Each structure stands twice: as structure tokens, then as C-alpha cells.
């Protein structure tokens, strides 16, 4: 599915990267622990996290993850969004909890990475 579909399924707001919503998402990783993202999120195209600080953006960048969806209403600040734009990343935000967000996307066909 595209990021546009993700936005509609998770009822998300687009905070950065409006011009890249047609990018394809196939696999995703959900974690608040960035070390686990670095250890396990290989070949994922989206990160779901409740960690709203610059390290979430930097970690996604290191793993070539082009889309970050902040859950539980966590709000990245303008500095983080600036960093994300610089890295041509799409930033989304939803008020839904992590479990609910992952469940909806999984049901719609997004798969998790493999160990």
C-alpha cells in the first residue's frame, strides 16, 4: 500500500513529506527502543514509535526507513520535522495506541520484518 493508504487506515496527520505520500510501504517495525530498531528493522519501509525525539528520526535514517509514524499522540517538535525534511522522510502522527495501529496495518496487508 502507499503512505496515503497508511494515513487513511490509521487516521493519521501528515507532519512532513506531503509530496511523497505515493511511496510504497510493504513492511514495518514498531518499537520505542531504538537499539532494537537498529538490530532488527532491516528492509522495513516504515517505523511506528512512541519515542518523540531526534533519535527516532536519526535511527530511521540509519536504517533507510523513509516513513515514521508517531503513535499515542506523540508530537515531534519543529526541529525534528526539519531534520526529517532534510532526510526526505515522511512523518505521520496518530492518536491511536501502538497495538491498535499495528493491528490495523497488519490486517490491511503490511507485514513485519523477519528475525
Amino acid at each position, binding site marked *: 500500500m502507499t503512505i496515503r493508504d497508511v494515513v487513511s487506515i490509521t487516521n493519521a496527520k501528515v507532519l512532513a513529506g506531503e509530496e511523497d505520500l505515493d511511496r510504497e510501504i510493504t513492511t514495518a517495525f514498531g518499537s520505542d527502543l*531504538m537499539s532494537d530498531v537498529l538490530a532488527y528493522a532491516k528492509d522495513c519501509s516504515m517505523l511506528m514509535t512512541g519515542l518523540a525525539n531526534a533519535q527516532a528520526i*536519526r535511527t530511521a535514517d540509519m*536504517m533507510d526507513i523513509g516513513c515514521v509514524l508517531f503513535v499515542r499522540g506523540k508530537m515531534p517538535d519543529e526541529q525534528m520535522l526539519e531534520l526529517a525534511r532534510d532526510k526526505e522522510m515522511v512523518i505521520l502522527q496518530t492518536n491511536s495506541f501502538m497495538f491498535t495501529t499495528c493491528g490495523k496495518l497488519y490486517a490491511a496487508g503490511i507485514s513485519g520484518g523477519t528475525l
Partner: protein
Amino acid sequence: MNDALDSGASPENGSDEPLVLDYTVVKDDFTRAGEASGDVKKKLRMAGINPAAIRKVSICMYEGEINMVIHADGGGIRVEIYGDRVRMILKDKGPGIKDVDKAMQAGWSTASEEARNLGFGAGMGLPNMKKNSDSMDIQTVIGTGTTVTMVVNY
């Protein structure tokens, strides 16, 4: 500057002169932690290095950089980009690692609450650096600091 460069670029296999990048890492600068890693990644991409190798370098360097910010009093990172490999030398001023074997175990951590708030400090860093590098060496002196040298081949 140059003597460090010369000693770093040993003439193994008549290797080419590396492109050398130097960064300063500041203690407790949680917002900028990872900036050096981001810059290296960008430069490797521009150099046309294969993406899988760039990912490995990125993971090694980013975890190492975070360690320098959260465990040490900052330090310096030197990155040497050769035709067939990248060597990263992360040298910090800090407490040193008391038990390197324990530090290498997944899940072992002495990180602060602040590090955990950053999304790190779960004891995954060093094992993940080892996993993603082709060689890793740790030299540590208690009360002085730690130098981690990693090589990723491509």
C-alpha cells in the same frame, strides 16, 4: 593531524589513500547525537558504496556515537574510507568499560535513565556493533577512556 592519518593508513595490500573524516562528539548533547553518523552515511552514499555496507557502517557508527554521548565525556571519531572498506575509530574520554565481556552480552547495560529515555541503554549497542562489523577491537582504560575500532568491508 597527519601523523594520526599516516599511522592509520597502514600500507596493507598497497591500499589507496583513504578519505579521512573527523568528528567531535560532545558529552550529553542528546539532540545532536547521531549527527556525525548521518554525515558519514550521506558521504558514503555520494561515493556510491553499496547500500548494505552503508547500512552496516551506519549501525556501527551510530551505536558507537550514542555510547560516547551517554557513557563517556565525549570524544572524537575518525572515519577512514578506503576503496574496499571503511574503518571507524571512536575514541572517548570517560570511565572506561569495567568488564568488556559483560558489556558484549546482549541485555547488559549500565546506562542512565536519560539514555533510556533517548531510546537506548538496553544493552544492545556493543553486540550489534560487533554483528555489523567485519572486525571490532575495544581498548579500554578505567578512568581514562575507551577506543573502539571497527572495520566494515565492501
